[in-house]
């Protein structure tokens, strides 16, 4: 330890004139460096502090309920019994569904804009799609209540059940009251679409011309060029865009709360009301008075943070693996 520290010291000692002269000559440079270092350090420190604070507050609930906090479906503030399984399930399923719905659309938009759209059309469409990200969450919620839910209930739902005959499947069983997993997932899909599509678009536009020209020169059609030359090149970036959308979906609160029906119950049916972790915290924190209740909500917060972390790690790993394949 001391040896390596010594070695490092000698290292800097060997080339003091060069590095010292360039980096540390003026006071301004040193201050600049110091300030940026503080900024850079502040973010991880803040994150660690937040995580610590949440964990400390969540500890009483974890120690009281143990693993059953993650597996139990009973959320009873009157009797101080708390289990977060329905919320964990709801968060994961609504986000996954949203991703499933949003990704094809987002990629379609991105490919059209990058490959097919004439320049005069590209800007307006790109701008409109980006604008989706600027709409406040509560507005999505209201739109969901007044437009999306009636539409899903009176048009989409009968089509899925009667025309396609899907009511035999457990996913479409039961009565449809509109406030359910399906509505929440659709609204989430619309909300994450601009993130995924903006990233995918930029990445596709960044693919070098030579890549396309080479494919075309080999006699590939436009479709084959995009499929075999452009998309594989941009794959890791596109994955990054999807992950960005997923992160957004996991944490989205207001619009989901307004549409999901807020029911502490796991049901396979998409027509059944459900609950997400973020919605639960938003709903209950203000009026929670009992220590156990507050701690349980903090514990849900900790689980949500952990879930996001795990999802991000998996996503990073996917991106890393894909980009390594491309390089190979």
């Amino acid at each position, binding site marked *: 330890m001391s040896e390596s520290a010594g070695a490092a010291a000698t290292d800097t000692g060997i080339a003091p004139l060069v590095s010292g002269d360039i980096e540390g000559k003026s006071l301004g440079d040193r201050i600049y460096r110091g300030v940026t270092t503080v900024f850079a350090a502040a973010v991880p420190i803040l994150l660690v502090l937040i995580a610590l604070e949440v964990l400390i507050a969540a500890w009483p609930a974890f120690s009281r309920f143990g693993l059953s906090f993650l597996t139990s479906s009973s959320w009873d503030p009157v*009797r101080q019994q708390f289990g977060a399984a329905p919320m964990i399930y709801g968060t994961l399923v609504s986000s996954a569904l949203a991703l499933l719905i949003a990704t094809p659309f987002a990629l379609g938009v991105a490919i059209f804009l990058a490959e097919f759209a004439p320049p005069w059309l590209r800007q307006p469409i790109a701008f409109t799609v980006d604008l989706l990200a600027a709409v406040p969450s509560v507005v999505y919620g209201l739109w969901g209540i007044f437009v999306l839910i*009636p539409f899903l209930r009176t048009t989409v739902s009968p089509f899925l059940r009667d025309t396609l005959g899907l009511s035999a499947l457990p996913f479409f069983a039961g009565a449809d009251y509109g406030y359910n997993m399906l509505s929440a997932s659709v609204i989430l899909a619309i909300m994450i679409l601009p993130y995924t599509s903006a990233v995918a678009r930029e990445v596709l536009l960044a693919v070098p011309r030579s890549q396309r020209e080479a494919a075309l020169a080999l006699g590939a059609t436009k479709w084959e060029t995009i499929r075999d030359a452009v998309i594989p090149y941009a794959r890791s970036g596109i994955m990054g865009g999807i992950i960005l959308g997923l992160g957004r979906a996991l944490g989205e609160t207001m619009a989901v709360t307004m549409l999901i029906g807020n029911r502490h119950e796991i049901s396979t049916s998409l027509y059944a009301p459900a609950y997400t972790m973020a919605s639960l915290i938003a709903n209950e924190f203000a009026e929670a008075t009992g220590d156990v209740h507050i701690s349980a909500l903090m514990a849900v917060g900790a689980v949500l943070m952990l879930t996001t972390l795990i999802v991000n790690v998996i996503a990073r790993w996917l991106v890393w693996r894909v980009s390594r394949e491309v390089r190979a």
Partner: protein
Amino acid sequence: MLALAACSQRDAGSKDSTAAASSGRVDLTGAGATFPYPIYAKWFSVYDSIKGVKINYQSVGSGGGIRQLQEQTVDFGASDAPMSDDEISKAKGGPVLHLPTVLGAVVITYNLTGVTQPLRLTGPVIADIFLGKITKWNDQRIAALNPGVKLPNTDALVVHRSEGSGTTFIFTDYLSAVSPAWKAGPGKGKEVQWPVGLGGRGNEAVAGQVKQTPGAIGYVELAYARQNNLPTAHVKNTTDAFVNPTIESITAAAAGAMSGLGAGSDYRVSIVNAPGAQSYPISSFTWILVYQAQPDATKGQKLVDFMKWMYGEGEDYASALDYAPLPIELRQQLTARLSEIRLGTAAQ
């Protein structure tokens, strides 16, 4: 000359007061329940214009109000549910007084096409609908209460509040009082484990979901239902009368409950299912919470003065905002109780 002097004096005076206003001088701060916020905001603004005492109130919810009072970060709290003994024992400033301010009520709203006259319901029937035991609108027990009404053969879809709220507390307090099955099951609280139904955030979401869904039934606070012309059920009270929720029938409930509120009462009482022929059964007080010991005598005096004004003139503003004023005898009793607040002393 004199007029000029007076004028300039007044100018100076008004400049002072604007300076005070712009510097954000606040005499008292409070936090708590959102349900009485409209009437509290009205009171504080009127009181400021009369007495020049500025009261700042954050409607963060009853739970938040209680927490802030316990931590002494506010001069008073406000809650739709009384504090438990446990919560009072955690208050850092000593004993807490519960001072009822106005009355609120919870009404049952529903969406039944073709039913034009108000639905009549009893406590046990409401409880069984919310327990999921009565699932159809043409159930015998509902039909028996509503002779001559053609009830549809549709599912009764329950809509409740998703977030913790005083409205839920009052409603579940009532259901616990009238239904042993409810008491043993979900119980009472600002948030309970609902056996069936959908959760909506806020009165507006519950009302919205009921409006949109044929066959839905939900509960909202009276003021919200009145302002939005929602259909409301008449509920059977202790004298077997079906009572329409109105300002008068709620004040009547408080008057009916007065007999149980002697001089020694701490006013942490539920008035659901109150006696009296005119009493609407799902009524409740909402409270301002203050420490009995007020170490800061100036602030304490301002608080007491405000409460005295509120129990006098203040109550007249209530009904215009769809809150039921306290019965006059109760206001006198509570004004007398303000003398229990000790100024300039710390908690023992």
